[in-house]
């Protein structure tokens, strides 16, 4: 008996809610540093703040042991120019990361600069993520081939036992990316938090930030939340807070039933942090940026969704007759290029139509040298986020990579619908302390309007934690506004007061539909305003009908409200950018010129007295990255040493 309906059929009754229901209880927690979100960035923020000797509370929607996008694992420690084998200078590489945000492969000469990176986060990552990695090892994370499993592998350095990856390193040109045993990381981080006395509040969703006097734009002095198993209300009072929550991946997704969800993000990634920062009055940038949908919906086959897209590192793709395709092997020769350039992809498409290549394609695992296959299958896919369960599923079913070609789904499943996209890239404006425009509010990880990679999350979390701790030492106690708490309590508990109406799945789909229709490939002033109108209707007519039958469904309902706020931010930022941009995947029919020089700037939005104010920032508003980093971190002590 596994399923709910099996229980019902056998017992003749439904299982009772297994946790005490405490909607009427309120718990108060006082701390110096409050960390919101217990993923990679949040755990690191908590650890570095606790090492500064302050009281730390860490709040997480799931269980910190495996929560967040990096909870299950991580196979590559990317952009690590301070490692002993690196051939590039950290400060120089930081500039590359800021100019080509999110790059994971070698950049061909003449590559167009994308702009809109996060120079502050890139500088921190390039300077500090190697120290961060060494601290992970102190905590029990595995970062080297200590068991000599891969002696003789290309990229393995026998002196350090580090395994360098071809990513971003064609023919060993940079040696920037380290292969890691990342499935060991998250439990080690939780254990370290516990050892340092961090108070961990698992299964608690934070829903709002408390500000001084309850005023929008004032200093952040705490947060509210509720336990998603018991419904208990929580009030956190803090001197500094670190926002380390996930982005929003479900805003354009109609389907809430995930038949093989892929790409690192569970349904918990609903942009709660951005929604609460927005409502508290923080200034946000890049909210208009979107990327093609990266979630497996069950309609497509992607590596992270069970059946493999076999175009993975070092793996030659062949056609149905075994003929090699001009697809990057993502090995040492091409520095981990993940996809063919558009012109090669087009040549392959034409070749298919002319019979030059026969569909379907396969990943030729048997053709790989034994060691490379072993590394790819056992180390890389064995440690990366959600892929271990995939390789073990294949093995159970009889797949043997030394004998079998794994099917690839390029071309046969078609392209992702352009209206299905992911909000990705936006977040609070931060300064060189990773402080937002609100005093007392620091930001780390994915919300730092940059690529959301594991080492970036870890090193920015570690940095924001220590800056927040320093700030908290200068701040006196402040009084929370009972009115603000009462108003939030009434917002949060409204859905449990009803037993019928609209439930969270329907609301999620309605928000997604609005965004698909009015904020997708074809953007105009009229369409964007129609979307805002439609969301207003949803907010005023349908949200008051939202109902939730238990604390879990209440969490999903409140997540929908985060998404609704997030959608409004995207629309306001989209209205404010009156130009198209390739880098932002942002095209306006009424302003068709792509990336005109006068629009090479950040558009910012914030709430003031609940009215939207837009503004702008220059693209490199952070100034001289190296000088500013050095000036703000003269006391940085490097790798932590236990006293």
């Amino acid at each position: 008996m596994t399923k709910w309906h099996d229980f019902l059929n056998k017992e003749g009754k439904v299982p009772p809610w297994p946790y005490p229901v405490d909607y009427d209880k309120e718990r108060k927690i006082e701390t110096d540093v409050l960390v919101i979100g217990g993923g990679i960035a949040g755990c690191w923020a908590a650890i570095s703040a606790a090492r500064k000797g302050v009281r730390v509370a860490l709040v997480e929607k799931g269980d910190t042991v495996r929560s967040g996008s990096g909870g299950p694992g991580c196979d590559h420690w990317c952009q690590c120019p301070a490692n002993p084998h690196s051939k590039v200078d950290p400060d120089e590489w930081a500039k590359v990361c800021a100019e080509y945000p999110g790059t994971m492969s070698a950049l061909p000469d003449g590559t167009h600069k994308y702009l809109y990176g996060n120079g502050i986060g890139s500088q921190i990552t390039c300077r500090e993520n190697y120290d961060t990695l060494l601290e992970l090892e102190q905590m029990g994370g595995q970062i080297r081939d200590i068991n000599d499993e891969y002696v003789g592998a290309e990229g393995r350095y026998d002196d350090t036992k580090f395994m360098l990856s071809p990513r971003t390193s064609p023919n060993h040109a940079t040696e920037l990316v380290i292969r890691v045993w990342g499935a060991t990381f998250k439990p080690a981080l939780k254990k370290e938090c516990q050892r340092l006395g961090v108070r961990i509040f698992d299964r608690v969703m934070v829903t709002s930030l408390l500000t001084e006097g309850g005023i929008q734009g004032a200093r952040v002095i705490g947060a509210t939340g509720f336990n998603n198993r018991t419904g208990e209300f929580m009030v956190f009072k803090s001197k500094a807070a670190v926002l380390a929550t996930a982005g929003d991946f479900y805003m354009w997704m109609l389907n809430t039933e995930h038949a093989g969800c892929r790409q690192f993000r569970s349904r918990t990634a609903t942009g709660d942090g951005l929604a609460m920062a927005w409502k508290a009055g923080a200034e946000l940038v890049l909210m208009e940026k979107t990327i093609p949908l990266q979630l497996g919906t069950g309609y497509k086959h992607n590596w992270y969704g069970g059946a493999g897209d076999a175009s993975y590192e070092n793996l030659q793709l062949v056609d149905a007759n075994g003929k090699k395709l001009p697809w990057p092997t993502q090995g040492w020769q091409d520095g981990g290029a993940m996809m063919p350039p558009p012109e090669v992809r087009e040549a392959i498409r034409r070749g298919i139509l002319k019979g030059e290549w026969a569909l379907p394609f396969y990943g030729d695992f048997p053709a790989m040298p034994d060691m490379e296959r072993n590394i790819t299958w056992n180390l890389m896919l064995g440690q990366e986020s959600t892929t271990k369960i995939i390789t073990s599923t294949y093995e159970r079913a009889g797949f043997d990579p030394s004998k079998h070609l794994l099917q690839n789904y390029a071309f046969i499943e078609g392209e992702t619908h352009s209206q299905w996209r992911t909000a990705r890239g936006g977040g609070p404006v931060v300064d060189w302390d990773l402080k937002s425009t609100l005093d007392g509010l620091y930001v780390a990880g994915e919300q730092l309007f940059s690529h959301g990679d594991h080492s970036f999350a870890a090193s920015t979390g570690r940095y924001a934690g220590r800056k927040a701790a320093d700030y908290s030492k200068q701040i006196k106690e402040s009084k929370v506004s009972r009115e603000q708490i009462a108003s939030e309590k009434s917002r949060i508990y409204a859905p449990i007061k009803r037993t019928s109406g609209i439930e969270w799945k329907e609301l999620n789909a309605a928000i997604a539909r609005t965004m698909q229709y009015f904020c997708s490939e074809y953007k105009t002033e009229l369409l964007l305003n129609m979307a805002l109108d439609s969301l207003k209707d949803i907010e005023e007519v349908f949200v008051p009908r939202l109902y939730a039958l238990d604390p879990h469904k209440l969490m999903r309902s409140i997540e929908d409200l985060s998404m609704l706020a997030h959608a409004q931010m995207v629309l306001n930022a989209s209205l404010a950018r009156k130009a198209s941009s390739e880098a932002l995947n942002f095209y306006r029919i009424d302003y068709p010129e792509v990336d005109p020089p006068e629009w090479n700037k950040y558009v910012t939005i914030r709430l003031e007295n609940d009215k939207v104010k837009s503004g702008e920032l220059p693209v490199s508003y952070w100034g001289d990255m190296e000088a500013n980093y050095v000036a703000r971190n003269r006391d940085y002590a490097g790798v932590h040493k236990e006293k």
Partner: protein
Amino acid sequence: MARIKINALPNITTPNAPVTFNPDICKGCNACVNVCQVDVFIPNPVKGNPPIVLHPDECWYCGCCVNDCKHPGAISFNWPMQQRGSWKDKVTGKVMRDNE
């Protein structure tokens, strides 16, 4: 033949069994309940019995419940049919699928 009694149930959420438990091996320690970041499971009201899959539609297929289980065989993964893998023997050309 005697008439059988059945319950009136709504259509069942699809997919509804991202994992299955082996009740002979699973001791109901609920480690999987705690490790799941989306709360797919609830503990069984009967102590010692396998957890109940309450929110299968929210599973993101991360595999932590299986990977971190201390009792091999107690819990196994069950990919939705349309997400299952396919491959081909390089020598014989025989196409195979995950029919577990």
